[in-house]
């Protein structure tokens, strides 16, 4: 039986591991190659690097990190952050990445997913989605974010488009999403989510989760898969950094709408949270950063806990 995966994620900036709270207030947590090797030795099911280097000049450092990691870690390696072209993907795969995750660039140009999937296979193209509860819903007692930018100017700036271009982009996206086949009917006994009533709950945010695109996260996931994404890395911007647990409703809504694996991300604070994401959230994998980085739990403890909850995880001899 296929095991559920536990994926430690390393946010890498300028060649060092950092982890912020709600993507801010970054702390230095060490050398990515060393930390990856530690996780590999602990039996990580996969390791994820997210390059959050802001400047274009600093981008080369991640290739070096990936190359040095791949020479000594023999587990799947996913790399994301700042990828804008098929050439970027080729370079990362050559350096030793097994999968790459695309985020903002895919929102700007969804055809990048199709091109990359055709060139390298769907199995190595991960669509990363940063989702946040739609603002009017947040106003009703839901957690709010003072830092997010909504509205046309911010979106135009993030997309690098003027207003007519942005409107054209929005129209094209709408058209593509409207032509998606309906969500297949699943076994009703397995689902507690009425997908028909979920519309427009979570929006896709880009640029480090700061800018609202207005796109519906579930629809965007479905479009991404239709274009050739082989996996969805789903981060709840509301939960990220809170350590209060994954957004299970969001995770489940996406997991039940696509037929590729979904990695839950954002909010892990306890082992119970991991178990919830994999059961109630219907995720295939749970990604976590701080609970592993700061030694709160080891991967072995996580595996043991999940096993005690009846979740299939990899058996590893100590």
């Amino acid at each position, binding site marked *: *039986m*296929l095991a*559920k995966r536990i994926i430690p994620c390393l946010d890498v900036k300028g060649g060092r591991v950092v982890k912020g709270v709600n993507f801010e207030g970054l702390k230095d947590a060490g050398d990515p190659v060393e930390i990856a090797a530690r996780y590999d030795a602990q039996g990580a099911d996969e390791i994820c690097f997210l390059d959050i280097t802001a400047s274009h000049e600093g981008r080369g450092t991640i290739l070096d990190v990936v190359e040095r990691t*791949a020479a000594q870690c*023999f587990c799947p390696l996913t790399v994301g952050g700042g990828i804008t072209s098929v050439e970027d993907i080729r370079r990362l795969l050559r350096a*030793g990445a097994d999968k790459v995750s695309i985020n903002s660039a895919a929102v700007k140009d969804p055809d990048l997913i199709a091109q990359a999937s055709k060139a*390298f296979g*769907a*199995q190595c193209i991960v669509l990363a989605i940063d989702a946040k509860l739609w603002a009017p819903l947040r106003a009703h007692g839901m957690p709010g974010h003072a830092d997010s930018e909504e509205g046309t100017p911010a979106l135009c700036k993030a997309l690098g488009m003027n207003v007519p271009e942005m409107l054209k982009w929005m129209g094209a996206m709408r058209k593509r999403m409207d032509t998606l086949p309906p969500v297949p009917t*699943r076994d009703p006994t397995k689902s507690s989510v009425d997908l028909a009533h979920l519309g427009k709950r979570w929006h896709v945010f880009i640029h480090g989760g700061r800018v609202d695109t207005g796109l519906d996260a579930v629809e965007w996931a479905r479009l991404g898969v239709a274009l050739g994404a082989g996996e969805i890395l789903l981060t709840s911007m509301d939960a990220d950094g809170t350590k209060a647990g994954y957004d299970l409703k969001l995770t489940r809504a996406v997991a039940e709408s696509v037929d590729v694996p979904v990695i839950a991300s954002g909010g892990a604070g306890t082992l119970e949270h991991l178990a919830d994401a994999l059961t109630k959230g219907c995720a295939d994998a749970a990604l976590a950063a701080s609970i592993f980085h700061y030694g709160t739990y080891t991967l072995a403890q996580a595996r043991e806990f999940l096993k005690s909850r009846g979740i299939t995880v990899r058996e590893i001899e100590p």
Partner: protein
Amino acid sequence: MNIAIVNCGSGNLGSALKAFVHLGANAALRDRPEDLDAADALVIPGQGQFGDVMNGLRQRNLVEPIRNAAKAGKPVFGICIGLHLFFEGSEESPGLAGLGLLKGSVRLFQGSAFGAGGGLKVPHMGWNALKLTREHPCMRGLEGKFVYFVHSYYAAPAQPDDAVAWSTYGQVFCAAAGTGNVFGVQFHPEKSQHDGIRILRNFLEWKP
């Protein structure tokens, strides 16, 4: 032992090479027929589409050198698409002949257990457990171990004795197969941490 990692133009060749280098093996990526002829053992790794990889081998004139190595009794090891190529054909590329080193074909995961209705996602991606059906030197110590799979198609050996290991994903499927000096695995040992590396080490010690 001079190991040729056959470069058939598919992706992910570097991982297999890195793993063999890590084990101290004398391995290199090779794509010239004479280099394959000169090698003591061949590894056909990688991911890709059956037809693309098979055509990649043809264009580089590597089909005969692989068949010759198999005939000559040299260890020939296939990983993922490499295992698929050993068979006579694949549903992934109908009408295209494989290497024909093993009898049988390659099939797509399909049916009521898969896709939107059944809930099992294709490709089968992640860690799954092995069940050995017979002893094989390359699979020593691997009973019940979890290894890393990424595939939508699986090998269906026509000769039951060719199967070496099974795994389960909606159905029982072949996870490793071989006959004589030809051996292949569906999963990625180069990505299966300790247990995967053990298979590669077993392969290096294998004297078929």
